[in-house]
């Protein structure tokens, strides 16, 4: 566990350094609109420039950035003229809600369909599932969002539709592989019911890998949140990132990317730990 926390911290520190470098090198960095104010004297402008002098050195800039970050100050958004921390605090819960609902829907539908296909071994169900997943995998999240807008469907369900094909395909392959293992075949031959075979013999084998998939789907859902929130007009961090990208607000974008990276890394680490403890308990 301490190793995992250290890994996350190091990743965030390196990510923060790369992010600060991007902000430092972004076009327009160091330019202040206030300098255009005709009422300011030459000496006032010089004084303003002096306050930003230290930011010229990348490492000084980075440590200053990190210091502010540790105090919860993520800087100001250039386009929205508001503190980034305030914007994130307002919008992150909205995105987290959508992601949680999307994952719950996607996992329920994808996993249950995979279980139904593997256990029933019905070819028509497999064909239907494969066709549906095949079409969904060919649709970009942005097109799905547009279709949701056109159909006036509740946008929150969209993330479920984005993660569903990935969960279904992976779970079906994994469960099919596990159900072909010799000990599962023996259990079937001995006359065990479908539920017992699934719960006692198939799921324990496939469990750790399915838990690893859980972490991956968190990242997929966050990525799909950008087009969903941008096109369905939902006030989450995906929409904020899109607006920041259009307005070239690199400081805001870098902070958002770091926050999402932290969330996905934490989710991946939790699923890893759960997978490992699952293996240990099985052994």
């Amino acid at each position, binding site marked *: 566990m301490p190793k995992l926390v250290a890994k996350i911290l190091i990743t965030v520190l390196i990510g923060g350094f790369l992010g600060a470098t991007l902000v430092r090198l972004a076009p327009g960095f160091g330019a202040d609109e206030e300098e255009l104010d005709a009422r300011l004297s030459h000496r006032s402008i010089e004084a303003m420039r002096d306050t930003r002098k230290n930011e010229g050195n990348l490492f000084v800039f980075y440590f200053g950035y990190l210091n502010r970050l540790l105090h919860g100050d993520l800087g100001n958004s250039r386009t929205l003229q508001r503190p980034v921390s305030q914007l994130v605090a307002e919008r992150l819960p909205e995105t987290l809600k959508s992601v949680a609902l999307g994952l719950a829907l996607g996992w329920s539908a994808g996993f249950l369909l995979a279980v139904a296909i593997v256990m029933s071994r019905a070819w028509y169900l497999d064909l239907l599932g494969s066709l549906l997943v095949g079409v969904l995998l060919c649709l970009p999240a942005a097109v799905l969002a547009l279709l949701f807008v056109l159909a006036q469907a509740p946008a929150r369900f969209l993330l479920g539709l984005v993660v569903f094909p990935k969960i279904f395909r992976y779970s079906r392959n994994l469960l099919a592989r596990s159900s072909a293992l010799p000990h599962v075949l023996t259990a079937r031959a001995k006359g065990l019911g479908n539920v017992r075979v699934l719960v006692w013999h198939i799921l324990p084998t496939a469990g750790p890998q399915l838990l690893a998939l859980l972490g991956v789907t968190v990242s997929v859902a966050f990525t799909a949140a950008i087009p969903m929130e941008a096109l369905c007009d939902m006030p989450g961090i995906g929409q904020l990132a*899109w607006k920041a990208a259009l307005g070239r607000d690199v400081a805001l*974008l870098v902070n958002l990317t770091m926050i999402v990276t932290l969330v996905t890394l934490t989710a991946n680490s939790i699923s890893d730990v759960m997978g490992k403890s699952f293996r240990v308990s099985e052994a």
Partner: protein
Amino acid sequence: MKWARITAIVFLLTVSAACLLADFIAPAPYAHQFREEPDASPSRQHPLGTDDLGRDRFSRVLYGTRVSLLLAPAAALLSSLMAAFIGGIAGFSGGRVERWVMAGTDLFLSLPWLFLLITVRALLPLNVSPIVSVLITFAMLGCLGWAGAARIICADARALAQSDFILLARASGSNGFQLLWRHLVPNLKPVLYAQFWISVPVFILTEANLGILGLGVAEPLPSWGSLLRELEGFSAISGQAWQLVPLILFILVVSSFHLVLTKEELPV
């Protein structure tokens, strides 16, 4: 599934040929505006009608498909080569080099893909010519999409580096470069081939996402992103079903790319 694979390849070849011959097939240049006929229905002159700016939709579909079908494989080639270089060196060297390179790869993989893309896109000029914007978009996809493939190639290269034939080659006096070039790279070809074909539809989908969000290829050059963005103005009531043709073509092309790989070549 052999028939499905053959059908997919034939379909992709047909679409590619049609796009490459767009200069001869298209009824009008992609940016030409028929100002008297905006949002026109299909006719002999405009087989798929015109868009809201009066541009021939069929021509735009042909040129847009050409852009995506030419540049997505180019981006996939770039990312596969980067993955081969990074993953191959890491796997072949092993030890500390492998650990450090893979830690870097993990860091790259933990960054959310679309967030990373739009951050990098925001750093690059948005007000560039359409040709430059299309090159920037696909070059960015190629440069940022190597990490997943590098991990797989590293694992394969590690397994190969420990195999008997490499040991024999080493014992015969082959140096590092010879081992890499003559023995490792040829054996990594199937994995690289699979990674290339997996990357192409991923890049097509990502470009479409970026294009719909207004962060992809600049107007008036068409790409699938800008063509699919037209769906914003689609209305089921108006019954303009021909507006869905780019979407149907998009689904068919992407699913054909998915079908090109055999089951054995696909990851789980």
